[in-house]
């Protein structure tokens, strides 16, 4: 499961949006089978980093070394092909089609008749039903359009469809934000299971408890730079919160520092 | 070309008469020493209004106008003439304001000629002037088609045994005409004759007749404007009569008087021979007007090279009227 080269190495990743510097040089590694919790304040740059890794945005500068080779994905399709699966913070569902169509988006099961690929709806529905129920989510009908589903039901689709496809690296951007208690518990378990298979996992969350429950390492981003990169065993929730808000950087302030 | 430039404002190039007029006017004006530049308004009145304004700014020797809308160009005609640029009107008569010369076949007259021919055809077919006629108009907002309708129906009033059904082909579009013909052949299987207001509409009308199982001559067909396809249809027996608009003569007449118009000399009323046709100049409230009656083209005379539809542009040069 382990290996000397990391699964992914980020080296000086920068990203500007016009005058705004969202990322100012991010470097850290993700190992095979390792769960990295990526923490940070709102607007710190976490989602931007995820989009860069998953091929949705180009970095303004910096290198990514994936499985020992420098890569630059020019589309999510390429990153996917390289084994990188992503769950986005702003849900990536098509609300105009049903649960099954969303679950198999871009990876539909087909059977060929005279060379023509024909969708296998029954098979896809069965697979979707199993995944959703394993996740502890209840959806009245898998044939309703996603626009009619609750926030948590939507997130369950998004979170669980990636498991179906394995991959080598999984990026989860606040995947439990809308999930219920039980669903979150199962989600965290699932993360442990995939990591155990040697898959690298990056999980973004604002809930310390979740981070400490699954993470091997904690990386904190503050205003576009890495403000901390520690083993989860070596730190505490309080310390991490201070890294996030930046308090730790100042000598004991009188009032809690405002993130300004 | 040495004498200056004349602008020809053509309303559209989507039908054969208009296309033919471009080459005819360019040729005949060339004969008498003028260069012609043509602007196409694409059937849009406001575009043509703008073209007039632009052309006025160019100060040409004269403007030849075939108006999209018969009367909408009045202010621009006035503006051109006020700027000292003479305006000649081609094919579409504008009576609401004076111009320097108008050359027309007469749309109402086309209706009259068609009525005469249809009277004959019905009598030959039914023994007397009776029966059912389907009249396919052009666009119902186009006065050109309304005037033909007016002339036609005025004459046909004399024959109460003739039923006329009139339907418009929106935007002069051929397949609209085709649909009308196929629907009407079912609703009124006893239609004796179809009268379409332009030859390109006859193309689709014939296709519909053929699809309805008709043979040439089963349903008589009359059309107006004398375009090449119309003459072809006569040769094949699908069509009996084209009422021609004497395109060549209409264009040549303008060229014959071009010098007079450009130099603001008087045009005298009277009879003038234009390419072998008898034209008559009258002085109307809207100025000098030359009318060149359209002839009926039938199987008997269809090959006569004088018809513009045979596309044999007269070789002899037009000469200016002294």
């Amino acid at each position, binding site marked *: 499961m382990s290996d000397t080269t990391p699964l992914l190495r980020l080296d000086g990743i920068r990203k500007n949006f016009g005058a705004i510097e969202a990322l100012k040089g991010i470097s850290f590694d993700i190992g095979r089978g390792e769960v990295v919790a990526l923490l940070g304040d709102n607007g710190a740059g976490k989602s931007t980093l995820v989009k860069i890794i*998953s091929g949705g945005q180009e970095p303004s500068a910096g290198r990514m070394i994936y499985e020992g080779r420098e890569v630059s994905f020019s*589309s*999510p399709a390429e990153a*996917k*092909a390289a084994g990188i699966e*992503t769950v986005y913070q702003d*849900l*990536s*569902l*098509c*609300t*105009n*089609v049903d649960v099954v*169509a969303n679950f198999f*988006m*871009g*990876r*539909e099961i*087909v059977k060929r008749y005279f060379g023509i*690929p024909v*969708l296998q709806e029954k098979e896809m529905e069965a697979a979707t039903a199993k995944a959703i129920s394993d996740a502890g989510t209840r959806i009245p009908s898998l044939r309703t359009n996603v626009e009619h589903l609750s926030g948590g039901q939507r997130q369950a689709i998004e979170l669980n469809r990636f498991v179906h496809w394995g991959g080598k690296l999984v990026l989860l951007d606040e995947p439990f934000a809308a999930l219920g208690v039980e669903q979150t518990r199962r989600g965290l378990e699932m993360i442990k299971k995939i990591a155990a298979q040697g898959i690298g996992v990056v999980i973004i969350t604002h809930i310390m408890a979740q981070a400490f429950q699954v993470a091997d390492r904690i990386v904190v981003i503050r205003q576009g730079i890495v403000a901390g990169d520690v083993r989860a065993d070596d730190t505490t929730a309080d310390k991490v919160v201070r890294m996030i808000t930046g308090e730790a950087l100042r000598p004991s302030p009188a009032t809690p520092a405002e993130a300004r | 070309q040495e004498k200056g430039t004349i602008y020809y404002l053509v309303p*559209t*190039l*989507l*039908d*054969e008469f208009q*296309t033919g007029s471009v080459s005819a006017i360019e040729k005949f004006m060339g004969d008498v020493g003028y260069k012609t530049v043509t602007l196409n308004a694409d059937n849009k009145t406001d575009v043509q209004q703008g073209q007039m304004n632009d052309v006025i700014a160019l100060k040409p020797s004269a403007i030849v106008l075939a108006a999209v809308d018969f009367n909408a160009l009045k202010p621009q005609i006035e503006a051109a003439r006020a700027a000292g640029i003479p305006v000649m009107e081609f094919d579409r008569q504008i009576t609401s304001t004076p111009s320097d010369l108008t050359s027309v076949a007469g749309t109402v007259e086309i209706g009259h000629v068609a009525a005469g021919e249809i009277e004959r055809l019905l009598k030959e077919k039914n023994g007397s002037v009776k029966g059912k006629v389907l009249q396919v*108009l052009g666009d*119902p907002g186009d006065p050109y088609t309304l005037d033909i309708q007016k002339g036609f129906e005025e004459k046909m009033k004399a024959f109460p045994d003739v039923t006329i*059904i*009139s*339907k418009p082909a*929106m*935007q*002069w*579009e*051929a*397949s*609209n005409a085709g*649909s*009308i013909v*196929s*629907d*009407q052949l*079912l*609703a*009124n299987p006893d239609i004796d004759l179809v009268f379409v207001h332009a*030859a*390109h509409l006859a*193309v*689709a009308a*014939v*296709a519909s007749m*053929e*699809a309805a199982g008709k043979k040439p001559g089963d349903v008589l067909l009359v059309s107006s404007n004398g*375009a*090449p*396809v119309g003459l*072809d249809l006569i040769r*094949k027996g699908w069509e009996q009569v084209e009422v021609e608009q004497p395109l060549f003569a209409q264009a040549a007449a303008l060229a014959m008087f071009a010098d007079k118009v450009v130099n603001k000399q008087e045009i005298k009323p009277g009879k003038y021979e234009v390419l072998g046709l008898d034209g008559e100049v009258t002085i109307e409230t809207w100025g000098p007007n030359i009318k060149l009656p359209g002839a009926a083209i039938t199987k008997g005379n269809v090959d006569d090279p004088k018809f513009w539809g045979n596309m044999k542009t007269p070789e002899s040069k037009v000469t200016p009227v002294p």
Partner: protein
Amino acid sequence: MISTRHRAVIEFVLDHLVWFILIAVVALFSFTVPSYFQIGIFANIVEQSTFVATLAIGLSLLIIAGYMDLSVESVMALAAMVIGILFAKSGVGLGLTLTPAWLIVPVSLAIALAVGAVVGASNAFFVVRLKMNAFIVTLAAYIWGRGLVVALSGGRSAQELPAELRFLAIERFLSVPLIAWVSIAATLAFAFILNKTPFGRHLLLVGGNATAAYRAGIRVDRLTATTFVLAGAIAGLAGWLLAIRTSGATANLGVGMLFQTFAAVVIGGVSLKGGVGSLTGVYAGVLLLASIQTAINLMGMPAHFTQLIQGGMVLVAVLLDTVKIAIRKKLA
């Protein structure tokens, strides 16, 4: 409470409401408009629907994927004129012949499809590669496409296609000419593609949320380009059919059909916002418009009033659609 079975029936009707509106409208005309109720007239409605129905396939696919194509009408005219110029015997037609003569069917069809596909590819290039707005690109193609028709034909008509092609407009199966069957077959084929193949599924996904589809690894650009080319080729097919029906082509052939096509597509239930629509619904929309036009052709009213009546009828027909909302509310 309504029984499940009952509810299913109502849902079915609501989902196919255009068809039921069509039936209602045709029934009404059959009772009120003299000569309307006869096989021949119904066959005419189907025949007249041929071209708009064909154009509507490509346009629907593009709109479902979240794009627009204003060029289809001109592409159709261009294809028709090219066929007219090459194969018609009089007018501007060159009257080319092939041996054996029936070869003209596949050859002319291939040419028409190719003409359409080329314009579609040009649209795709500007939209997908240069990221230009599809509305503007296809509007430009609408203008230059018609311009090319005029330039090629010199504004003149081509007339008399050979009998080997014309039989498609003359021969009938179940009273309906073969050209109409071609468009019905094309509609069904693409309805299948839209509903049952990954390509169709991806169109819906891209039209619903292009970002989500892109993130899911769907190659959105390739899909879009393909669809533009397809829409062009299908417009070429429409042009081929129109030339066959007209037995040639005129410079203004098909003017105004773009509007009818858009109307049919929207009446048929395709959302201009993308992501929603079915081709069978669109076909019903086309038939609905043609039924109204035919009623007007038969009604014997003064020519001046036809447009007024037509506008009113379109409104009333679609008004029926609003009962949908009321019923759905009741259902809840």
